[in-house]
């Protein structure tokens, strides 16, 4: 990292000092020179006047006596003074009594003399008699200023030469002084700064230059060292923080790995458990489905019908039922409390109870079936006991079509019967009493409703899951009104067609909302 000589600080400092000294010295010398010049001129002038004064009397006598010889001796006397170039003595009518002249000195500085002052001075002295005021003649003298200039040039030259030499010597000395006191220590410091290791800033500190401990260079070195120490400190702090962060990151990553593995394990277990539950439910569904009337049996007994049976959770609490005996055909839709597995348990119990009531006990009228079902359920679930855990039960609608197919008997526990005849929709209300449950009456009497069968009559039994399904813009229940108007507009279609359209309408109404309950509907026409 060498610094060019002309760009060194010492060179610049010396140069500036020399220029200032030179200009200042020259200016002062010039002032002194011109002052000397003025004094010299003054001296010469005074001398000339004194000399003239010395010859004034002789000259006046020469003029008065018109004595050319005396005039000549005056002229000769004056001429001995080397500064005088020309002398003439004239009388009162300007007749020259004596005259003498010599050539002016010439030299290389004539231009300078003319530039600084007139090259010649003229003196004219009027010659008068002492007691008379009459002018007798004139003494005229011309002096040569070149001589003065010659002296001036010599002195000025010496002075300037002196100045120049002084400055050359001074500049040399200053250059050396500045080099050793400024440039060299700075170069040393610069080399040391260049040697600083950015990763370990305080390993090589900058030496404080000898003899500069207390000056600006010393201060610069100290401050640089303090800065390096500061760098080292903040660097080590940063390293410490980075290490800490890296440690935390590693810990976090480790934690994430552990948690992920835990989660994966849990997920696996959950998936396994879920699969087991689903498998179990799927199998349960096979059992539950086997309780339901077979489609072929339905078709043979009741050619015009459709069944919708959709448990919400694979298995459910809804059930439809058909049994044909000498009393006729019994059809039922049952909605047990709860859905999923608890609901399915209830349906098992209900089917078994219905079989017992109809086949073992020979009860065929709907109201009586409901009454007996109520007693059996309450008994089976021990709901007559104070401390029973069960408060479960069911709603149901039961129809009996007599063998002659002339009449339909209906009884309902909270599930109504709908039928359409001649474009009129009829609702046969159920008794408002559920079967089972702790609070229901053991001896409740259900009501049989009789409907005379006519051609084209369509009957519908359904669980509340259908009409209570939320949907539409307002997300409110589908409602009986909506379902009834739908039944009225579609009852003339074939039953499979009705089922298809009804499910379509149901799903459209539900939109993105979940199905909330099990859904069962039985639609049929006797003839």
């Amino acid at each position, binding site marked *: 990292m060498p610094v060019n000589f002309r760009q060194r600080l010492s060179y610049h400092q010396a140069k500036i000092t020399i220029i200032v000294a030179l200009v200042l010295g020259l200016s002062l010398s010039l002032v002194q020179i011109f002052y000397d010049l003025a004094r010299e001129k003054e001296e010469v002038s005074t001398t000339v006047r004194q000399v003239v004064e010395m010859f004034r009397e002789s000259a006046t006598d020469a003029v008065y006596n018109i004595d050319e010889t005396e005039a000549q001796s005056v002229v000769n006397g004056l001429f001995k003074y080397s500064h005088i170039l020309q002398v003439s003595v004239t009388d009162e009518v300007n007749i020259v009594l004596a005259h003498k002249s010599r050539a002016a000195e010439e030299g290389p500085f004539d231009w300078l003399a003319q530039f600084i002052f007139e090259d010649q001075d003229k003196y004219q002295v009027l010659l008068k008699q002492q007691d008379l005021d009459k002018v007798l003649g004139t003494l005229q003298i011309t002096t040569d200023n070149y001589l003065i200039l010659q002296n001036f040039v010599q002195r000025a030259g010496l002075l300037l030469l002196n100045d120049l030499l002084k400055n050359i010597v001074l500049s040399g000395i200053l250059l050396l002084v500045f080099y050793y006191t400024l440039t060299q220590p700075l170069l040393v410091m610069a080399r040391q700064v260049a040697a600083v290791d950015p990763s370990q800033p305080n390993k090589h500190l900058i030496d404080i230059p000898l003899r500069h401990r207390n000056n600006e260079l010393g201060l610069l070195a100290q401050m640089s060292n303090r800065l390096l120490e500061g760098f080292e400190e903040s660097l080590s702090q940063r390293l410490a923080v980075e290490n800490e962060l890296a440690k935390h990151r590693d810990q976090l990553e480790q934690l994430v790995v552990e948690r992920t593995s835990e989660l994966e394990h849990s997920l696996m277990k959950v998936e396994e458990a879920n699969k087991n539950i689903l498998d179990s439910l799927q199998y349960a569904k096979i059992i539950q489905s086997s309780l339901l009337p077979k489609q072929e049996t339905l078709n043979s007994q009741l050619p015009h019908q459709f069944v919708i049976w959709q448990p919400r959770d694979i298995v459910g609490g809804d059930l439809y039922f058909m049994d044909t005996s000498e009393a006729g055909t019994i059809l039922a839709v049952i909605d047990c409390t709860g859905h999923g597995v608890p609901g399915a348990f209830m349906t098992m119990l209900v089917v078994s109870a219905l079989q017992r009531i109809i086949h073992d006990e020979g009860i065929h009228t709907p109201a009586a079936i409901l009454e007996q079902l109520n007693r059996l359920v309450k008994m089976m679930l021990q709901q007559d006991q104070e401390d029973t855990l069960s408060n479960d039960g069911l709603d149901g609608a039961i129809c009996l079509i007599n063998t002659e197919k002339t009449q339909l008997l209906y009884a309902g526990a909270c599930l109504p019967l709908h039928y359409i005849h001649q474009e009129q929709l009829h609702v046969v209300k159920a008794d408002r009493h559920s079967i089972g449950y702790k609070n229901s009456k053991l001896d409740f009497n259900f009501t049989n409703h009789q409907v005379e069968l006519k051609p084209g009559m369509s009957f519908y039994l359904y669980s*509340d899951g259908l009409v209570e399904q939320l949907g539409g813009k*307002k997300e409110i229940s589908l409602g*009986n009104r909506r379902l009834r108007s739908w039944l009225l507009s579609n009852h003339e279609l074939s039953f499979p067609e009705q089922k298809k359209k009804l499910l379509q309408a149901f799903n459209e109404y539900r939109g993105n909302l979940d199905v909330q309950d099990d859904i069962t509907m039985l639609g049929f026409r006797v003839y």
Partner: protein
Amino acid sequence: MDNLQIDATKFTPQIFFDVTSQVLEIRGKSYPENTAEFYEPVFEWIKRYLVEIGNIPFTVNIQLDYFNSSSSKVLMDLFDLLDNKAREMSEVTINWYYDEEDDIFLEHGEEFQEDLDFVDFNLIEFKS
């Protein structure tokens, strides 16, 4: 007594009982998997409260979007409780809110109304 506050979930309603205004609010959906378990603390609370209030008038506002059949039984049990209270001493009002287009909720309301003898059971239609 402190206020009773149960926040709504996907399957259960918000239940809020403000003791200063004597108003019980039930809003939202009610189809818990285990209805008895969910409503048991509510019943406990209400039973204690009914003993404490003596004959101060008391109001229940119910605005449900959906409830399953077991929730319906629970509601009936609650209304029976209030009906008994009304018979004994207090003036009890039940406001049953239903959407103007929701005939199911109107029917449910009408059925409850039919079954209760002493409480002042109001069916209040609202537009949404």
